[in-house]
């Protein structure tokens, strides 16, 4: 039988913080403009101390009644004073257990321990505890660990360079930040002659700065641009600290991942509970042949601001090495590919949007010249800036058209698809597929094409959609996954 760490008393006490309303009301009642106010107030201070004492006492009682029991097969947590809540978690059902060791808690010998099962629909841990080191060790002794003799030999520790690249790419949208900053720097430059007088007087210092640097950028635009670059840099440093010291070990049953400098986190993931693995790329990573390996498993990446990343950055050609236990095999080609003839499904909307920029620019230019002639150059710049992401989007979708598809091998399914500007290669066990949807609009019906969407059983409701597949391929995929879907009022043979 174990108790939580005494620091937990503070959290339990905080729940009764509302009781401070009584000292506050007493303070208001005794308050009056006189030199005797302090003496009047201090005379009744014992009542305030009594309330604070009661708050801490309630926290202490609540902590005392929070009891953890570890049995051979299950973990039991008893909580509550008046209303008793007893939670039984069978150890075999724990998908992921997490030990967090933040510096500020480490100084008191405390650790955050959470266990998550596949129950529920939200990405929250089923059991969260603040325990001391010895209790944590005693509980973790019952959680399966990687066996030394079965460890995958070829699973290399990610290099510092890969962590650095990962932090660059996944820090609040690197390209987005560069784009927004550029928008403000360059846009500000153009707008200088028009609006600098009103904006650069915002603060004298920033105006002086722009003059000194001989930049024709208004102070406000400079500040906003610098803010975006600065926030990205902060995000980059935070990510670097968060994922530094990344370490991964696996055998055929358990995967152990640990990372972080200021808050070292250790995850133990039961491989049989992994819903699917997701190899993510953006266009730059795709061109460089790099992938970021993510995993969908209850509890992994459930902590706020953490990505369910398993390999920060890995070369695409090396992806199969050491990850066979997770069903990942390198060099697998698409059996069912997106058809080039169905390019419209991927490219139509981005092309329409990109093509619409020029007519819109022309249409509004006349109005701007008539009413705000000074803003013409700014409008031109805005049109160019709007065109850039749309052309980028066309390139992304063209790449998606060429690479999207679905493959079956062994008991696994591999889906290559794209969502917005990212590419996903999803590998999962066929039995984890919970829903299949074959979609056909009027044009697709005429050209005998369709889109196939697949959902895996997980706490998140995520759709992976491959468009522009041939109708026969779509039905065959559904049939392979055990779904008898008919698109033309004829039953397919099963």
């Amino acid at each position: 039988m174990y108790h939580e760490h005494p620091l937990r008393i503070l959290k339990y006490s905080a729940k009764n913080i509302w009781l401070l309303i009584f000292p506050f009301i007493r303070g208001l009642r005794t308050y009056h403009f006189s030199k005797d106010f302090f003496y009047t107030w201090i005379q009744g201070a014992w009542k305030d101390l009594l309330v604070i004492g009661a708050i801490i006492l309630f926290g202490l009682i609540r902590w005392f009644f929070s009891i953890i029991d570890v049995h051979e097969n299950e973990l039991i947590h008893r909580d509550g004073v008046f209303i008793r809540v007893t939670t039984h978690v069978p150890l075999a059902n724990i998908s992921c257990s997490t030990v967090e060791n933040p510096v500020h808690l480490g100084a008191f010998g405390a650790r955050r321990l959470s266990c998550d099962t596949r129950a529920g629909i939200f990405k929250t841990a089923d059991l969260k505890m603040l325990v001391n080191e010895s209790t944590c060790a005693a509980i973790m002794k019952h959680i399966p660990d990687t066996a030394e003799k079965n460890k995958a030999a070829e699973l290399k520790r990610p290099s510092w360079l890969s962590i650095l690249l990962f932090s660059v790419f996944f820090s609040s949208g690197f390209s987005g930040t560069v784009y927004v900053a550029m928008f403000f720097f360059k846009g500000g430059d153009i707008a200088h002659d028009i609006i600098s007088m009103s904006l650069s007087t915002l603060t004298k210092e920033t105006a002086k700065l722009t003059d000194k640097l001989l930049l024709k950028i208004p102070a406000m635009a400079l500040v906003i641009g610098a803010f975006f670059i600065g926030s990205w840099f902060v995000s980059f440093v935070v990510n670097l600290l968060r994922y530094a010291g990344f370490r991964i070990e696996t055998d055929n049953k358990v995967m152990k991942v640990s990372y972080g400098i200021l808050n070292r986190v250790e995850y133990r993931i039961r491989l049989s509970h992994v819903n699917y693995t997701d190899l993510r790329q953006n266009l730059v990573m795709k061109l460089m042949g790099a992938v970021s390996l993510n995993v969908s498993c209850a509890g992994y990446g459930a902590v706020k601001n953490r990505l369910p990343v398993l390999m920060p950055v890995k070369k695409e050609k090396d992806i199969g090495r050491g990850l066979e236990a997770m069903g990942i095999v390198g060099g697998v080609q698409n059996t069912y590919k997106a058809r080039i003839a169905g390019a419209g499904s991927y490219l139509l909307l981005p092309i329409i949007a990109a093509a619409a920029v020029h007519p819109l620019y022309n249409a509004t230019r006349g109005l701007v010249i008539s009413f705000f002639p000074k803003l013409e150059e700014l409008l031109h710049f805005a049109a160019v800036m709007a065109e850039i992401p749309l052309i980028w989007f066309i390139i992304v979708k063209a790449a998606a058209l060429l690479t999207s598809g679905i493959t079956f091998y062994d008991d696994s399914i591999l889906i290559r698809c794209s969502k917005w500007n990212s590419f996903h290669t999803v590998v999962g066990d066929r039995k984890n597929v919970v829903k299949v949807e074959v979609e056909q609009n009027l044009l697709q019906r005429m050209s005998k094409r369709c889109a196939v969407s697949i959902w895996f059983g997980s706490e998140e409701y995520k759709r992976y959609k491959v468009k522009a597949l041939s109708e026969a391929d779509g039905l065959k995929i559904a049939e392979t996954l055990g779904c008898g879907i008919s698109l033309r009022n004829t039953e397919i043979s099963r």
Partner: protein
Amino acid sequence: MKDYFPDKHCLLTLILLIILAEAIIWFASGRFIPEQFSILVTVIRIIAIAIGFIIGFIYFPLFFRTVRYTVTETEIIRTSGVFIKIYQSVQYSAIQYTTMISSPFSKISGFNFVVFFMFGGQLRLLFLARDDAEEIMKLAAHFSRKGE
């Protein structure tokens, strides 16, 4: 296979709680609403009594009569519903973990709840006698282990 039913003590406790709430509303409305709005006081009291009567003396007795929890070797079935009958069945293999919630004096009040957490949701067994709740927890754990 064994059937469990909600504890009859719980119905009595609920009715007592409703009567208590009614009394509070009765006195509070008379105390805090100014005298010139006496019609409003009467309306609030009548509505409160009507709702309390319907819930306490019609809905709850019917609800308690329709609720049944069946524990078999493979699944737990919950049958409930006054106006619309609902049958919910959960396989032990889908249950991930269980929680039992007990109020103070739950042996007398019958306020014991067992919640089964499983893939994509929960199954709540409400208003059980303490012994029944503990027995269901034990049976569920036993059958779950047997099925592994």
